[in-house]
């Protein structure tokens, strides 16, 4: 299945802009994605035509806004093949989602319990658990990574025990692009009675995931990684878990009855959705999913894989360039360094050529520490990038390296 790249690029207005007099070549998609007109228009459409506070209003427009918001939830439910729409909590993003769950387990776990975190995690899937463990004494164990940037599953097997209560792993590593064997991780965890939270922020833009088939306990993602706006994301939680853990934020919307003596909480999903939500964000999230599904994820996957292969081959031909993260299963991320040259210098000069990449630790210091480096240059592709852009990256990178060498 082929995608129509010319048509697609026309959908993204920002791709036409110039940076430092050059065509804007955006290769920082793992940080955030660009947005198609459809998504941008849905936001202004909302504020122009049917903005209102939702759920409580009696009037027509508030009903329209409420319907649109709840329809977005259903779109997300269907996209991820989730059984019940009330198992989809709309949050402000992956970080919020993970903190919500960590807070939920604060009083459930204690010093007799263990939690396992993968060594590939982004700080958002490390720090909330450290904060929780500091308070309730749960012991943290780590799945180490190998030289290819893959999780060492043998160690996982050895640290998994009946003391393990939770396991955290990202679906795709933002720093290296590694696609993790989460089905296996989930099955093994379940055998020992542990629940698994998968951070899907980097995965959702590149392929579809069936959460019922995965049988995962919690799954998170952020809309801005998949052509949606910032400030909105989702947390999937199996009903039994979402019923068990307490609310994260208190306030309006999440209550059933309020008196100064006692307050009771709302049912799912509203129990976890305090305050006025990012209504148009949710709507735009749904529109982004429609847009991507309309193109077709199979086509997106195939195209991005071809870009990854093309770019990897070209970059590997550059002397002294080392790529980190060489798992067979990868999404379109290439993290690299050139011997004797600091990533920051490369990124700064590539920017002068109009090319946007990311440099640094990518909020994954443990990954960087594992390789004994202070950071990398990270190039990350999306389905609106082209081979020509990769050629330009290759040429510019060579010029940059000769300036710095």
């Amino acid at each position: 299945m082929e995608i129509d790249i010319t048509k697609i690029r026309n959908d993204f207005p920002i791709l036409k802009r110039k940076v430092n007099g050059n065509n804007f070549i955006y290769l920082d998609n793992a940080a955030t994605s660009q947005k198609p007109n459809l998504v941008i228009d849905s936001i202004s459409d909302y504020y122009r035509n049917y903005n209102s506070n939702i759920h409580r209003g009696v009037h027509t427009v508030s009903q329209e806004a409420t319907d649109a918001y709840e329809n977005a939830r259903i779109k997300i439910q269907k996209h991820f093949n989730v059984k019940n729409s009330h198992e989809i909590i709309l949050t402000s993003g992956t970080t919020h989602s993970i903190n919500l769950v960590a807070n939920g387990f604060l009083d459930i776990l204690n010093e007799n319990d263990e939690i396992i975190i993968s060594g590939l995690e982004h700080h958002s899937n490390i720090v909330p658990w450290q904060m929780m463990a500091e308070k309730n004494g749960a012991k943290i164990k780590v799945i180490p990574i190998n030289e290819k940037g893959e999780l060492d599953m043998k160690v996982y097997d050895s640290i998994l025990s009946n003391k393990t209560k939770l396991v955290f792993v990202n679906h795709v590593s933002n720093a290296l692009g590694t696609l993790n064997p989460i089905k296996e991780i989930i099955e093994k965890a379940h055998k020992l009675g542990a629940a698994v939270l998968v951070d899907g922020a980097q995965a959702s833009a590149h392929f579809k995931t069936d959460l019922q088939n995965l049988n995962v306990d919690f799954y998170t993602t952020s809309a801005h990684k998949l052509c949606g706006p910032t400030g909105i994301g989702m947390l999937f939680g199996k009903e039994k878990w979402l019923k068990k853990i307490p609310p994260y934020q208190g306030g309006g919307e999440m209550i059933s009855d309020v008196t100064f003596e006692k307050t009771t909480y709302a049912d799912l999903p509203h129990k976890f959705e305090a305050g006025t939500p990012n209504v148009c964000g949710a709507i735009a999230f749904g529109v982004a999913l429609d847009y991507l599904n309309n193109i077709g994820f199979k086509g997106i996957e195939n195209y991005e894989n071809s870009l990854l292969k093309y770019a990897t081959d070209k970059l590997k031909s550059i002397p002294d360039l080392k790529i980190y993260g060489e798992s067979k299963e990868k999404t379109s991320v290439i993290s690299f360094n050139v011997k004797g040259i600091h990533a920051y210098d490369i990124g700064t000069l590539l920017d002068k050529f109009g090319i946007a990449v990311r440099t640094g630790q990518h909020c994954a210091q443990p990954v960087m520490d594992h390789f004994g480096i202070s950071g990398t240059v990270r190039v990350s592709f999306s389905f609106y990038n082209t081979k020509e852009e990769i050629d330009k990256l290759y040429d510019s990178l060579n010029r940059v390296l000769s300036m710095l060498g």
Partner: protein
Amino acid sequence: MRIKEIQDDIVEEFALFEDWMQKYEYMIELGKSIDLIDSKNKVDSNLIKGCQSKLWLFAELKNGKIIFSADSEAIITKGIAAILLRVFSNQTPFDVLNSDLKYIDEIGLKEHLSPTRANGLVSMIKQMKYYALAFSNK
């Protein structure tokens, strides 16, 4: 040479560059050629925070003038540090404290000194001013 004169010289030199590439090539040369800091001062306590690459700054007072030295893992950062040192080093604490940074704007490097930039240069300038403040009380 007074700070203002040095700043004016630098602005004049940079005006000769025709494009960004010449400017950056110059800064890279600066960064490569200058040996800026004594290895005994390249320690963690002299690291400037907020930088993607390691950036060290050291200062000592000699005959009433502050002598700054600095180094960085990233060449461009080092080049910019070299420019800052050319202006601030071997000057009195009073002069360092009272100088402005308009010349950075004039040579087109303002982007590097935006507080949101992860290159520690804003912190470095702050630290240089702190040193000046501390030394002005001696």
